[in-house]
């Protein structure tokens, strides 16, 4: 992979590069450079298969990490482009014109993370959730357990005991510690 990343390094200013295996590497790219790099990879370097486009929510850093994973079948190699965008107004240029299947990924990211891809076909159409009223569920600030308890009401009548406190109540209730 070293040769590929070096070649890319000469053409574009890349962020940090992690070489996971000899057939997989991840490269950080600036958001506006993404389209250029990915088009170059697809047309020149032979990475013609878009494997996946997903988002990772780094809530501590206030950032979404968009990962574009493309695969080159002849050389049997993958390269993942990492793009960091702001968490609050998360928008990114779509790549639905390069791969028609990217439109589906972008629809899912819009519904699940709230990342907007202006111009992507049917971006605002309901994809998975129907009549969803809360914030996009895959964001880390959405607590699914609390939502489930408030909305669906688990079956009552269950209670658990912690062994240590139970033994304290039973064997030495008066003691301080």
């Amino acid at each position: 992979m070293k040769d590929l990343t070096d070649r890319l390094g000469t053409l574009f200013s890349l962020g940090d590069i992690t070489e996971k295996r000899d057939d997989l590497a991840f490269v950080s790219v600036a958001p506006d450079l993404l389209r250029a790099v990915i088009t170059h990879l697809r047309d020149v370097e032979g990475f013609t298969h878009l494997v996946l486009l997903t988002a990772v929510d780094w809530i501590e850093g206030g950032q979404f990490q968009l990962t574009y994973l493309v695969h080159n079948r002849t050389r049997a190699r993958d390269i993942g482009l990492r793009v960091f965008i702001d968490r609050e107004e998360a928008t990114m240029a779509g790549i639905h014109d390069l791969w028609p299947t990217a439109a589906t990924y972008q629809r899912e990211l819009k519904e699940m993370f709230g990342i907007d891809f202006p111009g992507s076909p049917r971006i605002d159409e309901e994809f998975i959730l129907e009549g969803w009223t809360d914030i996009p569920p895959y964001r880390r600030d959405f607590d699914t357990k609390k939502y489930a308890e408030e909305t669906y009401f688990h079956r009552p009548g269950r209670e658990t005991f912690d062994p240590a406190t139970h033994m304290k109540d039973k064997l030495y209730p008066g003691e301080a510690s």
Partner: protein
Amino acid sequence: MEAFVKPGEKNRLKERPERPVKQELQPRVVKTPDGQEITVEPLKDYYCEAPPRVHPPAYAKIVEDLFNWARAESLWILGFGTGCGAIEMRPLMTPRFDAYRYGIQWRPTPRQANLFVISGYLSVKTLKRAIRSYEQMQNPKYVVGLGSCTINGGMYWDSYNTIKRLDRYLPVDLYITGCMPRPEALLAGFLELKKIIKAGKGEGANRYAENFDWYKANQKQVIHDWDMPDYSW
């Protein structure tokens, strides 16, 4: 069974922003073949809006027992696999487990089915379709819940999209536990259901009619995209 609490029970209806009605459900003016202009109201014309009634037992016990015997011996399951448990119903259709010898078979439409098997977890989107399918089935109708997901949420107990207790949304006659229950357990469950029906205790449909408001309130509390009348058969 959990005590039935009248609709006042704390299930706050989420405040729902007004949703645009789907294109095919909006009223539209259509020219009939003979040139007249009529307006089609899908939400009214396609449904029959009448709340369900409690069906009293037949006039004589002997006759009711006969009916129950007939109903029990012909459990026609609606072919709607709502969850992952449906895959274990397929072997029942094959000669190896041969559910047909017990009078059990699968029917494509709710009109011809009298047993609705909720086969595992039920996401909100499928719940809406399940409710419509259930309401389109003819009385007497029974519901069987498969797997731990219908009892107390199962593996998806903390998921934001699956219901946790089936008995809050549909009247359930029988539960078969397992993740997912095997074909043999399903057969044992159906035979158990036969006993319940023959004993005249298969009153799920009537319970649904009696506590109709409570069920509707619960259903509307989780289904936000409610673009159909309350009862659509």
